[in-house]
């Protein structure tokens, strides 16, 4: 594999870029390694998951080291590893495909410019997500100020707008019986969920997206959001109750 080096990566960022980076980039903090006692309490599946994460962390560290040396191929590998997750986070948060793509690109550009400030003490994964969630929150604030209307692609057919009690919708995204009708129902329900998700408070929405859609662990969410464990539990519960309330007419 050829090694493309970028001397620009080793140069300090310009003051304007530094200001932008300072807004969304926070220093990575050391994360405690799991103790042998913790490992002993894990189920085989959890142990397998922990091993997979450890391998991913080692790979990320290698890529970050190469990126800091100016290797653009390492940057490409990092982007391709995380692009779906960061784009998915943005899409679920913003509900607009073009806006989500621009924001996700912005996150990786910030990572590229700020990689020098990543000390390698915490996981790259949580550092990246912290940048993404800060960028997203800033954008939502900005869009709110400009009275931006989310453009969720909602199925406008009258039946799609009806609650389940009136024969309008369904409780699962995919029916047990496969086929085009089930797929259409799944798409319609996805749009309904996306619309109701978009109506939540951004802090609540972020927790639902991180935990229930992207499947992050509580510990990861605590590192990303900076919340205390108790606060996370109660806030996540309130977020779920709010979404349940909104989806109630579509559940049977």
């Amino acid at each position, binding site marked *: 594999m050829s090694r493309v080096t970028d001397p*620009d990566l080793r140069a300090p960022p*310009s003051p304007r*870029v530094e200001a932008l980076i300072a807004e969304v980039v926070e220093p990575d903090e050391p994360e405690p390694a799991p103790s042998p006692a913790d490992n002993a309490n894990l189920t085989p599946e959890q142990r397998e998951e922990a091993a997979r994460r450890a391998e991913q962390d080692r790979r990320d560290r290698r890529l970050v080291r190469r990126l800091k040396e100016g290797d*653009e191929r390492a940057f*490409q590998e990092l*982007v*391709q590893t995380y*692009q*779906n997750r*960061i*784009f*998915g986070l943005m*899409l*679920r948060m913003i509900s607009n495909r073009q806006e989500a*793509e621009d924001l*996700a*690109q912005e996150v*990786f*550009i910030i990572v*590229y410019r700020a990689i020098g400030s990543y000390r390698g003490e915490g996981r790259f994964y949580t550092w990246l997500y912290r940048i993404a969630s800060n960028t997203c929150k800033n954008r939502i604030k900005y869009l709110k100020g400009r009275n931006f209307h989310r453009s969720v692609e909602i199925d406008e057919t009258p039946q799609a707008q009806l609650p389940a009690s009136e024969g309008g919708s369904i*409780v*699962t*995204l*995919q029916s047990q019986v496969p086929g085009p009708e089930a797929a259409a129902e*799944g798409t319609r*329900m*996805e749009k309904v*969920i*996306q619309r109701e*998700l978009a109506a939540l408070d951004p802090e609540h929405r972020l927790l*639902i997206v991180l*935990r*229930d*859609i992207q*499947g992050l662990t*509580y510990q990861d969410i605590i590192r990303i959001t900076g919340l205390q464990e108790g606060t996370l*539990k*109660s806030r*996540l*519960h309130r977020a*779920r*109750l709010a*979404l*349940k309330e909104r*989806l*109630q007419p579509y*559940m049977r």
Partner: protein
Amino acid sequence: MAEQKTAEAEALMSAYLDEQLAPEEAARVEKMLAESPEAREEMSGLQKMLNLVKGLPEVEAPPDFYEKVAKKIRRRRYLRGENLWLLTLPFQVLSVVLILVVAVTYMLLHLDSNPSGQLEKDPTVVPPPAENPAQDPAAASP
């Protein structure tokens, strides 16, 4: 007091569904579920909602995502610092040309509209005598 305890136990419901509770906390939630049909209903609703949300399909970034990121980085690098003069050079040349054109046009228009204004009259200079004696009454008299 009892209400506060119930509220606390309710707040633990989500963590219970995520299997994130210590054994004693989990026992509190289970006790509440055993005693309260409302709590059971709420738990069931939460579970249904979670099944829906967790069933959302995974989202994929566009296939040319990295290329777009790399392009933006190149463009911003180009716009930064050392290459800025190259980018602004055509505008600098255009500005100078525009100023020259305006200046020349103004001068030409000004001269056209006021041709006598091009020479200033000096009051100390005596005008030369008229060359045609027929038009000079002093020269015509004896």
